[in-house]
């Protein structure tokens, strides 16, 4: 075991991919000379050179589309988009090309592309740098959508994502990069198809992912102090959703709270809630509850941003209201 950060774990995953497969290259805005806008790729230009750590112009649609083309042409590109907010300039390429190519071509052309991007709020970056739009991508057939929330997943999801024959989107919550923890020295590939129970419990299931996993785990600690034993499920893979894991958990605990930094309306939390109701309605002792961001463009002022985001206290309250 050694102490590392989420950022460093991600960097090691990229390094390993570059070392083990000549077809892999990283491309995006400021990944090279600047070292990555969140310093994930710091030092990689020096190690791998400008062909494989490729700085792009500010042309999101252009370089994401080029990533699709390169994948079709036999490469294994890792495209970095600075944040999900700017991925909207490439939405057309992701949704209309990457996700559809295999199906449209009757199974002839698969797109083995990985796109990484930062998501989430909490750093007072206001309404054009803070939104959690991964739920939109999770809506689209043809994409696999991952949300690493732990060091193991930051280290281990990229490899299998590159091995996936189809496009994979990896969402890294901006609040996680500095998170420190212990990681096994031989940490390697992880499964990218299932959800995980991060804390076993018996009284209520709290479903979370990405940036909200820590909120959920902290809430579980608070609840434990009051004698409520919460189980915390980390979705990990937002598309396709591993329904079995969270449904089985709810069947055991009989109560569910879903924590999602996205807006409530039409969100991932809505999808999770619907699946619980569809599959284990008769096991529920209380209505499904959701803790989401308030439906506003993210404000700059700290007290307003805090108010807009799901907080530990909101999760604790939601659990209490279910009578757990």
């Amino acid at each position, binding site marked *: 075991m050694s102490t590392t950060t989420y950022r460093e774990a991600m960097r090691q995953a990229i390094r390993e991919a570059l070392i083990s497969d000549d077809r892999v290259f990283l491309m995006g805005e400021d990944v090279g000379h600047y070292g990555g806008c969140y310093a994930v790729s710091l030092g990689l230009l020096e190690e791998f050179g400008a062909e494989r750590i490729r700085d792009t112009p500010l042309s999101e649609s252009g370089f994401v589309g080029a990533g699709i083309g390169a994948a079709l042409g036999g490469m294994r590109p890792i495209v970095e988009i600075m944040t999900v907010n700017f991925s909207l300039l490439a939405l057309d390429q992701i949704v209309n090309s990457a996700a559809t190519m295999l199906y449209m071509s009757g199974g002839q052309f698969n797109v083995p592309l990985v796109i990484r991007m930062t998501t989430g709020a909490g750093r*007072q970056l206001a309404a*054009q740098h803070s939104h959690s739009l991964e739920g939109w991508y999770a809506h689209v057939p043809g994409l696999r959508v991952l949300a690493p929330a732990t060091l193991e997943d930051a280290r281990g999801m990229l490899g299998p994502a590159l091995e996936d024959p189809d496009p994979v989107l990896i969402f890294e919550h901006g609040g996680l990069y500095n998170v420190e923890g212990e990681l096994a020295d031989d940490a390697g590939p992880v499964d990218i198809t299932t959800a995980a129970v991060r804390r076993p419990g018996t009284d209520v299931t709290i479903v979370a992912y990405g940036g909200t996993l820590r909120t959920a785990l902290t809430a579980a600690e608070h609840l434990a102090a009051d004698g409520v034993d919460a189980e915390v499920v980390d979705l990990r893979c937002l598309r396709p959703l591993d329904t079995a894991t969270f449904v089985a958990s709810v069947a055991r605990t009989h109560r569910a709270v879903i924590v999602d930094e996205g807006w409530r309306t039409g969100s991932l939390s809505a999808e999770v809630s619907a699946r619980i109701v569809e599959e284990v309605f008769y096991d529920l002792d209380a209505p499904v509850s959701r803790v989401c961001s308030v439906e506003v463009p993210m404000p700059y*002022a700290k007290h307003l941003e805090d108010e807009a985001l799901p907080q530990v206290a909101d999760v604790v309250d939601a659990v209490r209201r279910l009578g757990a």
Partner: protein
Amino acid sequence: MTKDLPEPDTGAQFTRACAENDHKVHLLRQMVRIRRFEERCVELYSRSAIRGFLHLGIGEEACAVGVLEALLPEDAVVATYREHGHVLARGVSMRATMAELEGKVEGCSRGRGGSMHLFDAATRFYGGNAIVGGGLPLAVGLALADHLQGRPRVTACFFGDGAVAEGEFHESMNLAALWHLPVLFCCENNLYAMGTALELTESETDLSLKASSYRMPSWEVDGMDVIAVEDAARHAAEVVRTGGGPHFLELRTYRFRAHSMYDSDRYRDKAEIEGWKSRDPIPALVERLRASGVLADGDLERLEAEVDAEVDDAVAFAEAGTDEAVEDLERFVTSEPVQRLASP
């Protein structure tokens, strides 16, 4: 009988020269206001009174001041996240600007926007846009509205060299030229988009040449010389206003500090930075004004003291400001029935 007519020319020339000199001192004052404001922002950031991303335009003041001097009150302005200078030069109060940076409800965007999203309806300042290239289509639309309603107004649109790589740049340049719209495109070319140098992102680094391929009159201007910027902008704005179609100014400038407060500036050569600092637009103008006798001993110190007092006042105003009530978090997601919309 008009026997003893005064010599008309001399008097008028004298008056004009005085006015011109006053104007140059005004340009200096505007640049110093922006510089001192932003220097204070750095202090406030280090003690966390300002948070989020903070992009400073220190070194680039002549661009904002020169262009905005050339506009009329009825004109519109669209800017980027590096827009403190533009908002101040446009006439938004330093108090409202500082209050915004401190997230107070007295701020020009009620504390909801912060440094990157300064807005002001009264001066037709349409933001602080933090999506690179995002402001250009907006400017085209504002100009289209003026065109359709026969209003002789200019929309000035600021953006960086990095934005030139975005599709929206090309789409907007083409639309504006095709429809002959009154947009003044002002590209602040500081040679870097975050850490990536222009020559690493553009196959053709001559941006005015690029712009002229849209059949748009385009000039390069020394963006470190406020008088040159104002002259070019005045000339261009006049033509744009009177139906001459869109124009493009490439303002060659440099940011003296890092991209944002998060940036360690590893990608620029120290000698390059020092070289540009020796062309600092503020001392350059001071020297000219001293050499021509416009600034006397003590004038600059007086001006700086007045500006410092204004900055102190703005900070005091911001710190005495109020946090917006959390109950109002959801206001303005949609228009309120009684809300008076900003007149276009």
